């Protein structure tokens, strides 16, 4: 369980996150949606202690992220940000091995190797594991980074817009993979998403942010509704039921 209580963040005069309190349940896939500038990525970065918190606390399974040692937290919670550009030349398996750093500090044990192999296989990277990252396509590279996060084997996995730069086929594959990781491996997956319909179809829980505040949260059926989406995005929406999923259209 991730407990966020009274969290605020501001840059100078601009308040980016304004007194957000929220509990993200353990297990399943939670999506955070909202318009640009709503503070989704900022909130996620603060949960993962990448950004200092101005006010309030974030607790992950009872550990205060601001006070817990970085390496202890790295065994519980992992995050993948967008734009993972590397200057260094690394192979896919090199990169995925870094996921084991919190446990091995660079000296891989057999157990670490097992995790790395499983993560590579899970993301279908066995063929590519000895290739260098700069030889891969954008989608393949994204999968390599996800494999690194998977190898880190934490209970909580956060992804900041993991579908960026992926075409439709790879985006669908990525969402299926994240949902399966939550279901089969018992992980808690939190994703920031732009696409409402991905959030609607794949999430167990949806959090809506607007203007730095928590606007709504609940199961997809409660959130993907015309009046809520219209108020969130200030745009006209139609919501239809299709094959058991709620699909929003806005054209």
């Amino acid at each position, binding site marked *: 369980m991730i407990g966020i209580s009274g969290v605020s963040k501001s840059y100078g005069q601009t308040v980016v996150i304004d007194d957000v309190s929220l509990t993200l349940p353990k297990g399943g896939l939670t999506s955070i949606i909202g318009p640009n500038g709503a503070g989704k990525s900022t909130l996620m970065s603060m949960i993962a202690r*990448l950004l*200092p918190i101005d006010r309030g606390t974030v607790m992950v399974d009872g550990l205060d992220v601001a006070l817990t040692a970085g390496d202890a937290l*790295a*065994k519980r919670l992992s*995050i993948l940000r967008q734009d993972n550009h590397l200057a260094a030349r690394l192979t896919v398996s090199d990169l995925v091995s870094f996921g084991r*750093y919190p446990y091995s*500090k*660079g*000296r891989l044990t057999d157990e670490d190797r097992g995790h790395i192999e499983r993560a590579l296989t899970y993301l279908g990277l066995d063929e590519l594991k000895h290739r260098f990252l700069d030889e891969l396509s954008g989608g393949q590279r994204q999968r390599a980074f996800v494999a690194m996060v998977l190898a880190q084997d934490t209970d909580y996995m956060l992804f900041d817009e993991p579908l960026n730069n992926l075409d439709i086929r790879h985006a669908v594959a990525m969402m299926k993979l994240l949902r399966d990781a939550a279901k089969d491996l018992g992980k808690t997956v939190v994703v920031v998403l732009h696409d409402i319909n991905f959030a609607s179809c794949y999430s167990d829980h949806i959090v809506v942010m607007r203007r730095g505040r928590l606007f709504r949260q609940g199961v997809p059926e409660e959130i993907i509704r015309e009046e809520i989406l219209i108020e969130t995005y200030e745009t006209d929406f139609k919501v239809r039921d299709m094959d058991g999923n709620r699909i929003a259209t806005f054209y």
Partner: protein
Amino acid sequence: MSPDEIRKSSRLILLCLAALALISMVAFMTLGAKGSWSFVLSFRGTRLAAMLIVAYAIAVSTVLFQTITGNRILTPALTGFDALYVLLQTSIVFLFGAATLTGLDPQLMFIAEVAIMVGFSLALYRLLFGSGRHNVHLVVLIGIVLGGLFRSMSGFLQRIISPDDFVVLQDRLFASFNVTDQTLVGVSALLIGLVTIAIWRMFSVFDVMMLGRDTAVALGVDHKAMTMRILVLISVLVSISTALVGPVTFFGLLVANLAYILMPAAKHRIMLPAAVLVAIICLVGGQTILERVFAFDTALSIIIEFAGGLFFIVFLLKGRVR
């Protein structure tokens, strides 16, 4: 490439580099020697030791700096580290006068200078990297402007100190690969030893730092503390190389990028030794060729600057430097 292939080919390349470095060292010591061997060996030995120290200092400081900035076109020199050292030297002469300084033990002085340098650069770069800011572009731009500021301030102080003081200062600042300050070789070697001990166990952390701040934090590394530790090491190394041979801008760039291109994978465990070996080959080999074959005496640093710049631009154009 599979891990085994990588390991094998890195070992092979490192061995070749080591052999080349050894050949250039032997050539430097023996080629064109006349007269008493014991004199030649001890005279050239000190110079060789100085060059090895400088090669090590520049190679390691550049690779580490590029690791923490995540950028392969930067050197500590480009962001004003060596200008800071020159300013420090100038201010000391300005404040205390050359007369007091010549009375002091140069080695103690040097250690004190390194300590001040570390303190100053930490304060400065804590200001820049601290409080959650990590816009590398901005930090580097500020560094470049700071370098200009330090240089101008040194120029300003050099204008207003007495001519006698200026002569002393000039002697200390305008060292070259040819006339290195031999009194500092021993103490520099000692500092290099300490730095080596400090980095020995940290190769894996360096590797993680290379992935960028966010990923390093997510993997549980205390990024800020580690950045500060690496900056301390860099300031010590830059002080050593600047004290021995004066400011060198592009040599580190040349050496680090050659190492990146030669080695199959980016692990520090192999990258740091490779960069040091490349630096030794360039420096010692280059000096030997210039001195013994072409009988040029003062030109190595100039040629290195030229070759470094040229190399870099060519590789930039080919898209090999990222």
